């Protein structure tokens, strides 16, 4: 089991690192959302969403509070399944496979789709153990492999230099921005292909925010990233594509440069220019 898991992860790593992102080349579609509806017990939260997300791009999801952004994000790794009384319709395909397929193992799905929550939420463990957690629950016991993986994940999350001398201290001893990057490192350690970021910088000061945004730029070379944000400037800065949601509907989805300069719908323009929201 351990060996299998390890080879599985390494082969995937190599696959990712060999891939060179060519700015001119059209990236392949990683995720496609088809006629997707989502219902809570008493209301419909998402209405007929259609969306294609390309590999190694960052998609920013913006929209007023309560428009269904976070609900949408939590559909990709099926975190909404924990809520009772929910219902899905339509499909979300990742690499062509529908994630709502009955055959699909939800544990595999979540390993493949990393998520970083709004509030930085390190576990009450050491910095090292936080990052190692995902590996351990996936049955990896090899100590050298784990420590190698932890340091690589911390480097990829641009946190290594700040914590390398205190890996055995509590994760709570880190600052807010560091904690958030630790959570990103924790998600990276299990080698996901897609990263979901739910307002990752909403509780951070401008300097820490800048660091996280820089990191997102770096990460998109390897991962496909979907980020929910309240902050319009942030969406403009970090995302290649922007999707604007309102009242559970996808109003507009296009290149970020287009959405922020020449949106095709009046309501998008109104929202972006701050006329409401």
């Amino acid at each position, binding site marked *: 089991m351990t060996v299998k898991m390890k080879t599985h992860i390494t082969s995937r790593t190599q696959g990712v690192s060999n891939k060179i992102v060519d700015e001119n080349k059209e990236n392949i579609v990683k995720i496609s959302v088809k006629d997707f509806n989502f219902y809570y017990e008493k209301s419909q939260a998402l209405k007929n969403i259609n969306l294609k997300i390309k590999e190694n791009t960052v998609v920013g999801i913006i929209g007023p509070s309560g428009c269904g952004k976070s609900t949408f994000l939590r559909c990709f790794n099926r*975190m909404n399944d*924990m809520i*009772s009384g929910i219902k899905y319709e339509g499909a979300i395909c990742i690499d062509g496979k529908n994630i709502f397929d009955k055959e699909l193992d939800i544990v595999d799905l979540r390993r493949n789709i*990393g998520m970083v*929550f709004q509030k930085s*939420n390190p576990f*009450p463990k050491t910095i090292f153990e936080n990052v190692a957690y995902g590996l351990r*629950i*996936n049955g990896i016991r090899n100590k050298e492999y784990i420590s190698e993986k932890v340091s690589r994940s911390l480097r990829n999350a641009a946190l290594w230099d700040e914590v390398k001398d205190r890996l055995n201290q509590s994760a709570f001893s880190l600052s807010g921005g560091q904690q958030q990057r630790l959570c990103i490192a924790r998600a990276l350690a*299990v080698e996901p292909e897609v990263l979901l970021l739910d307002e990752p910088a909403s509780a951070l000061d401008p300097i820490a925010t800048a660091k996280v945004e820089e990191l997102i730029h770096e990460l998109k070379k390897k991962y496909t990233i979907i980020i929910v944000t309240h902050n319009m400037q942030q969406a403009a800065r970090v995302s290649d594509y922007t999707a604007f949601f309102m009242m559970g509907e996808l109003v507009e989805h296009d290149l970020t440069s287009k959405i922020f300069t020449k949106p095709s719908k009046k309501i998008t323009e109104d929202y972006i220019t701050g006329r409401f929201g």
Partner: protein
Amino acid sequence: MKKRQITQVLGFNFLRLCIALVILILAVILYDIVSKGMGQISWEFLTSMPKDGMTKGGIFPAIIGTFFVTVITALLSIPLGMGCAIYLNEYSKKGKITRLIRMSIRNLSGVPSIVYGLFGVVLFVQLLHLSTSILSAGLTLGLMTLPWTITASEEALKNVPQYYRDGAQALGATKWQAIRTNVLPYAVPGMLTGTILGLSRAAGETAPILFTGAAFYLPFLPRSLSDQFMALPYHLYVMATQHHAIEKVRPIAYGTALVLIVLIFCMNFFAIFIRYKLRKVRIK
């Protein structure tokens, strides 16, 4: 002085009076028992059998009996109670039925102990033929402690933030993995503390063991779980109210009371100690 300041001063002093009164009562009880029971305590008192119709000798069989009965109580109520709490807090769907179950459990903790005692007779002694024994008494006390264990354990689980569960599952942990590795380690100190407090209460109970296994006088130690036994609280009850020479055995009664109180204090301190200890470990 303004009126509301006067109210404030009066209010504070009233609250001070309340706390002083409570401490006073506690102090009087403790002083009475310690001063009259202390003279009785000796190595011999703790380790020898009662003699001459319990007018002389020690309380060794009662200490041993209470110990074993408490062990049986713990063996029943810890796994069962923690299991129930985990199910209720982590797995059960929130709804009317769960609320009803939870409410019933809370209500069970208010059922008088004599009712548990009689229920124990019917269930364990008569129906399951376990006879009046350590086992029957321990199981009866276990049932009585369950609502406490479940409630305390559930509170401890509730105190673990939701994101420990979500975060773990988002990394690909199954629900049980998330609970085992990221919830239980932080809930166990609280669970144990509540459970031990419940056990210490059970160790001091008389009514549930009265009909299910405690013996008036046994000049020997129980040899198996199906033997009757002497227990500290029941022994105290006997010495204080049922003995033929009550005045003569009064010092023994005080000695027994002191031993029982010290035992229960020790258990409570142990509960506080492990909570403190485990809390330190987890922050590291």
